[in-house]
């Protein structure tokens, strides 16, 4: 037990230590040293995670660590503790694993930045909060991590804070997240109020044993809905998804780590963690599935016409997250988790690859000014190609298995949602290969000077890419259809019979074939349009019709601006100009009265000692006569 506590503390506190060192001494340590410290801190956490993973797979028992009683109110007791079970250790594996790779990558990528130590301290802080989020033993500890990663996300999006647009993007992300956080908080309150506990284990026990009344069922539904709103904010689902594309303002490693692989999956983690709550709220599950499907379709359509390489990937992330929520909505938690893992591999790889491209082009992000990079950057090209094949669902790459599982689940529950998901997948294949063709094939369309400087990135950038590409290629092996290691591993977590194993019959093979054909169709269209016909997306002014709507993201930002931001601004102006003026006058008036009284009182202080003595004697008389004569 002592050993487990130490391990858990080591796991959590090493990144925090890295953060402290980089914050206080980073500048004097120099860029390389500060980067190495940041990376080593996360690698240590990764090693600890491996130890824990080994322990859990061999014993099959969750490790519970209680540090101390945190809050104790009459009927609510909250510990500060950690729960290391199959789910949290699985999450830790890719958080710290991919985190280590991205830290390594950043040493090279951020080397020209003057605030490199700050970057690494933020990254370490992020890893610390992410670990806290994942291993907390109750919802309140999860909430600490939840808020912490939001804060780090804000800091890192606005990392290049000299650009006001980036600051606005950071603020947007933070505010959108706050809206979701409020939902999470309310959901927590309702759960705590209904079941008198926030601890996962106790909550599960209570929910499984409690006698059901309509009131409790109602509370659970509302709580599940609020928790889902929280997940929407963090995992960028409709209607709170607009912050994620803007979050691409941050440095590319940040996009890879926070906005593709780890933080945005926190919502899926939370729903999976509380699967017993969501299983009771079937209506909410339907809402989740529908919103997930719509998000995946909407984001995919927007992704079709984007020209910024990172924006394409951002919309792709939103779309893939939508697919995960689709699976969650059907109660297929292990499927969603599977897709989270494979998505973390190939999307991190894609982001890091795009970072390598951007690095090679000295900050150019517009795909219209790229092209022909295949020769200059072969490693980047091949790793990105593997990841694109994975995300497009080409057979035997990791994405094929996970996406197929989701679509199969959808097919068994609801045909319309299956169609929506499939269309989104075809679009995914299309825009990913559009990205590949525009970036790596044909002739280079940038300036001569850029062309002259084209080169493959250093080994610190390519090694993480290669590792991630291998994982993207073979990550699907952990959950092969028919024989799923992942499903067995996660089985203790779920109250329902874990993932009714899809019987591999004719229907399943047909569906697989359809999905593969769809993916290939998407790739083919992209090939014809951007390779054969040599099309290049038109410049901003010439975009017309439907693509203009898509290019402008369905004008959602403008609609939000008109519906929410402007009325609030008007209201604020009203309050500032009228209500506040009135209140100020009142307050200042009171101040003036007091001031006037004080000025009059000052005159009494004439400085004449004779008068003072006279008043003093009279007062003495009054006091004495009051004490002795007034009875």
């Amino acid at each position, binding site marked *: 037990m002592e050993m487990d506590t130490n391990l858990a503390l080591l796991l959590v506190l090493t990144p925090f230590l890295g953060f402290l060192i980089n914050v206080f001494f980073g500048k004097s340590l120099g860029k390389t040293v500060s980067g190495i410290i940041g990376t080593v801190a996360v690698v240590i956490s990764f090693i600890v995670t491996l130890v824990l993973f080994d322990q859990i797979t061999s014993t099959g028992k969750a490790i519970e660590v209680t540090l101390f009683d945190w809050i104790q109110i009459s009927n609510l007791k909250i510990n500060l503790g950690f729960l290391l079970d199959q789910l949290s250790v699985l999450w830790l594996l890719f958080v710290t694993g991919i985190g280590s790779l991205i830290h390594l990558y950043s040493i090279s990528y951020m080397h020209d930045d003057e605030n490199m130590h700050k970057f690494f301290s933020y990254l370490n802080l992020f890893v610390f909060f992410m670990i806290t989020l994942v291993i907390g033993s109750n919802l309140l500890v999860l909430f600490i991590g939840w808020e912490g990663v939001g804060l780090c996300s804000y800091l890192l999006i606005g990392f290049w804070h000299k650009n006001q647009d980036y600051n606005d993007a950071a603020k947007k992300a933070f505010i959108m997240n706050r809206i979701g956080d409020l939902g999470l908080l309310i959901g927590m309150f309702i759960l705590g109020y209904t079941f008198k506990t926030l601890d996962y284990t106790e909550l599960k026990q209570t929910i499984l044993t409690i006698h059901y009344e309509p009131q409790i069922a109602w509370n659970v539904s509302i709580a599940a809905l609020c928790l889902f709103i929280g997940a929407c904010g963090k995992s960028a689902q409709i209607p709170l998804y607009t912050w994620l594309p803007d979050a691409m303002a941050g440095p590319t490693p940040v996009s890879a780590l926070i906005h593709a692989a780890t933080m945005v999956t926190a919502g899926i983690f939370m729903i999976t963690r509380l699967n017993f709550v969501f299983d009771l709220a079937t209506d909410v599950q339907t809402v989740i599935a529908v919103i997930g499907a719509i998000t995946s379709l909407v984001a995919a359509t927007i992704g079709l016409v984007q020209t910024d390489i990172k924006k394409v990937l951002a919309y792709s992330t939103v779309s893939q997250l939508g697919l995960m929520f689709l699976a969650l909505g059907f109660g297929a938690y292990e499927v969603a988790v599977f897709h989270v893992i494979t998505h973390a591999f190939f999307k991190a790889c894609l982001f890091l690859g795009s970072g390598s491209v951007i690095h090679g082009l000295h900050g150019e992000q517009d795909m219209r000014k790229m092209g022909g990079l295949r020769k200059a950057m072969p490693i980047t090209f091949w790793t990105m190609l593997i990841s694109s094949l994975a995300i497009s669902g080409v057979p035997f790459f990791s994405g094929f298995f996970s996406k197929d599982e989701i679509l199969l689940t959808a097919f068994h529950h609801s045909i319309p949602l299956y169609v929506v998901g499939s269309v989104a997948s075809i679009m995914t294949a299309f825009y990913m290969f559009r990205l590949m063709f525009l970036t790596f094939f044909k002739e280079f369309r940038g300036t001569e000077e850029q062309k002259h400087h084209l080169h493959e990135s250093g080994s610190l950038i390519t090694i993480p890419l290669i590792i991630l590409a291998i994982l993207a290629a073979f990550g699907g092996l952990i959950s092969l259809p028919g024989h799923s290691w992942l499903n067995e591993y996660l089985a203790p977590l779920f109250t329902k019979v874990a993932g009714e194993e899809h019987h591999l019959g004719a229907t399943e093979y047909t569906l697989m074939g359809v999905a593969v054909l769809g993916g290939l169709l998407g790739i083919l269209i992209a090939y014809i349009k951007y390779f054969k016909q040599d099309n290049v997306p038109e410049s901003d002014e010439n975009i017309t019709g439907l693509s203009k709507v898509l290019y402008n993201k369905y004008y959602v930002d403008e609609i939000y601006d008109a519906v929410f931001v402007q009325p609030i601004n008007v209201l604020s102006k009203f309050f500032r100009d009228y209500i506040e003026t009135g209140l100020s006058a009142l307050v200042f008036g009171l101040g003036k009265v007091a001031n006037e009284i004080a000025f009059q*009182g000052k005159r009494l202080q004439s*400085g004449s*000692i*004779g008068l003072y003595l006279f008043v003093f*004697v009279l007062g003495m008389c009054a006091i004495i006569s009051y004490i002795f004569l007034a009875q």
Partner: protein
Amino acid sequence: MDNILNQIGIENYIFLSVVLFCIGIFGVLYRRNAIIVFMSIEIMLNAVNLLFVAFSTYHQDAQGQVFVFFSMAVAAAEVAVGLAILVSIFRNLGSISIDNLKNLKG
């Protein structure tokens, strides 16, 4: 030993003290010469001391006299310091009329 108060009566001492005390107050209010004001304060102190001694006899207890002893010590210190202050005021202002001391003006 015969109690002296049997012949005089405690109430006469109280009267005497009250009158002395009031004369002191009157002096403080009436005069503006700081030295005379000081003397008036001494008169008030003595009025109280006298009453202490009278009651000490009344209760046949020495505690009152001890108190008077301490009050004399304090009075001596007070007069010494007070007069030193008066001397320096006189040196600075050239007068010791309390009307000239206006530094307390708000």
